[in-house]
């Protein structure tokens, strides 16, 4: 039975749907000319060979109107959204989009939209997933997707780089990217000494306001935009984005394992060994690591070839995690920014276009290491609620209990009233066994913390 992908409805060229659990893309007749040209000119082969485009195979010709063809894309293991990416992920996705546009021009094509949602991370690298983005280049026409590119990619990068990484969350509020005029208002005026910022942020915002009512038929018709102008525009954006930097500073979490009083080297090694043994017992196909920090234990899962999503609320930790995965050419880890106490919700038209975290689950195994005290004490979440949440999300759970005697918990309670009378190992176990069976528990060497392997009740 056909089940449409709810976020796929804006482009009349085609749509994405599931049938019997398999993902397909329908190409409509109105896109026939561009689709055939895209393949015949060699651009498809070029992009796939460079690892820039998700490969597709043709499965059906024709069908009920308006179907031209049905194609099957390679399945992506986890869908992530731009508001969950760190700085370098957004930057790499932006540069890939521009690289694709540059290549397309060499083949007489252009991309008609530059949405960040057209990019997904596959085996650690950003790739274009929307094969219907391409259209034949019309000589003399400016880039239709310029405004969208700046809103989806340039604005968040500029805000993170020059103001604060938390402003990236605006991408979730503004579905079609952060408005350029908002970015212009926030950026200090002296930043416009940079010609790229002056052109693509300041001037563009001014022009958007000035010409909001239109520029008139004459100006639109007379205006010409040559191929060299187009290439110049792409290179200008590339140059600006390449120079944008964000060095994570002032993060409390980057040195967590090296500076922590709760762990010494022996404890960390023992914890790694136990996590590895638990993973071997559970043998999951995929893992979500909540509170992953810089991905130290995500690495234990990924080294076993397990597809691992490495979540953390701190953008600096995710940035460092991602930079390390790129350096090591790691293909099994995808680091993402996520606040577990306020995870990504369903958003968009009818709250159905972009899926919540829960809607993208469940996963076979969750790791919740050095996390429970942040949820229960810093965020006042009862154990029952935490256990209930995990039971909705996973079949297997590796969770670390951090007792009150632990140095980190002592620090948390140093300047606040201890209202956590129920915060104990006994109560923790009592609440969690309502949802999970405790398969094994191991006390970490030279630490007061205990690791548990749990299995959801009733799971096969």
């Amino acid at each position, binding site marked *: 039975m056909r089940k449409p992908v709810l976020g796929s409805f804006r482009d009349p060229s085609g749509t994405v749907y599931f049938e019997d659990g398999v993902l397909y893309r329908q190409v409509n007749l109105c896109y026939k000319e561009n689709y055939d040209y895209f393949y015949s000119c060699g651009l498809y082969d070029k992009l796939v060979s460079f690892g820039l485009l998700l490969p597709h195979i043709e499965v059906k010709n024709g069908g009920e109107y308006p179907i031209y063809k049905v194609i099957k894309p390679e399945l992506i293991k986890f869908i992530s959204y731009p508001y969950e990416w760190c700085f370098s992920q957004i930057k790499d996705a932006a540069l890939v989009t521009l690289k694709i546009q540059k290549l397309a021009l060499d083949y007489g094509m252009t991309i*008609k939209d530059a949405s960040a949602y057209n990019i997904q991370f596959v085996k650690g690298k950003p790739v274009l997933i929307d094969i219907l983005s391409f259209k034949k280049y019309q000589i003399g026409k400016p880039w239709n997707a310029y405004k969208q590119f700046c809103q989806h990619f340039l604005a968040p990068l500029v805000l993170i780089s020059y103001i604060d990484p938390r402003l990236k969350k605006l991408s979730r509020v503004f579905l079609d990217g952060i408005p350029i005029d908002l970015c212009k208002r926030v950026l200090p005026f002296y930043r416009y000494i940079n010609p790229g910022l002056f052109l693509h942020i300041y001037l563009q915002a001014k022009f958007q306001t000035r010409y909001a009512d239109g520029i008139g038929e004459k100006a639109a018709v007379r205006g010409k935009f040559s191929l060299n102008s187009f290439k110049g525009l792409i290179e200008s954006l590339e140059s600006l984005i390449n120079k944008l930097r964000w060095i994570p500073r002032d993060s409390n979490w980057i040195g967590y394992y090296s500076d922590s009083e709760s762990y010494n080297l022996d404890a960390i090694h023992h914890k790694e060994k136990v996590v590895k043994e638990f993973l071997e017992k559970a043998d999951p196909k995929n893992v979500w690591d909540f509170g992953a920090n810089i991905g130290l234990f995500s690495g234990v899962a990924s080294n076993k070839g397990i597809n691992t999503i490495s979540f953390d609320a701190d953008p600096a930790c995710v940035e460092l995690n991602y930079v390390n995965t790129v350096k090591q050419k790691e293909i099994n880890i995808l680091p993402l920014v996520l606040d577990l106490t306020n995870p990504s919700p369903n958003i968009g038209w009818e709250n159905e276009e972009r899926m919540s975290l829960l809607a993208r689950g469940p996963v076979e195994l969750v790791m919740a290491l050095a996390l429970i005290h942040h949820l229960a004490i810093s965020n006042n979440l009862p154990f029952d609620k935490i256990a209930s949440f995990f039971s909705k999300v996973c079949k297997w759970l590796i969770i670390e209990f951090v007792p009150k005697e632990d140095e980190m918990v002592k620090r948390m309670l140093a300047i606040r009233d201890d209202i956590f009378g129920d915060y104990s190992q006994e109560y923790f176990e009592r609440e969690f066994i309502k949802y999970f069976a405790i398969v094994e528990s191991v006390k970490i060497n030279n630490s007061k913390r205990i690791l548990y392997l749990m299995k959801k009740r009733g799971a096969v």
Partner: protein
Amino acid sequence: MKFKNRVIAVAVVVFIVLLGFNKNAYAYLDPGTGSYFLQILIAGLLAGSYLFKNLWRKLFSKISCFFKKLFKKNA
């Protein structure tokens, strides 16, 4: 008859003018008037910058090749 021909002529002109307002079926993305106009306005600057950079890259490449050959000969 004259009046009838006049009416037909006006109808044909209106039809042709309306045809000219047909939007490209693939322009499903709103490019934003200001962003569109900015590109047209700076088209010359962008093209000039692109050509200059290209020229400079080619020149630099030729100069590098020349000096590489020179050092190889001397070596």
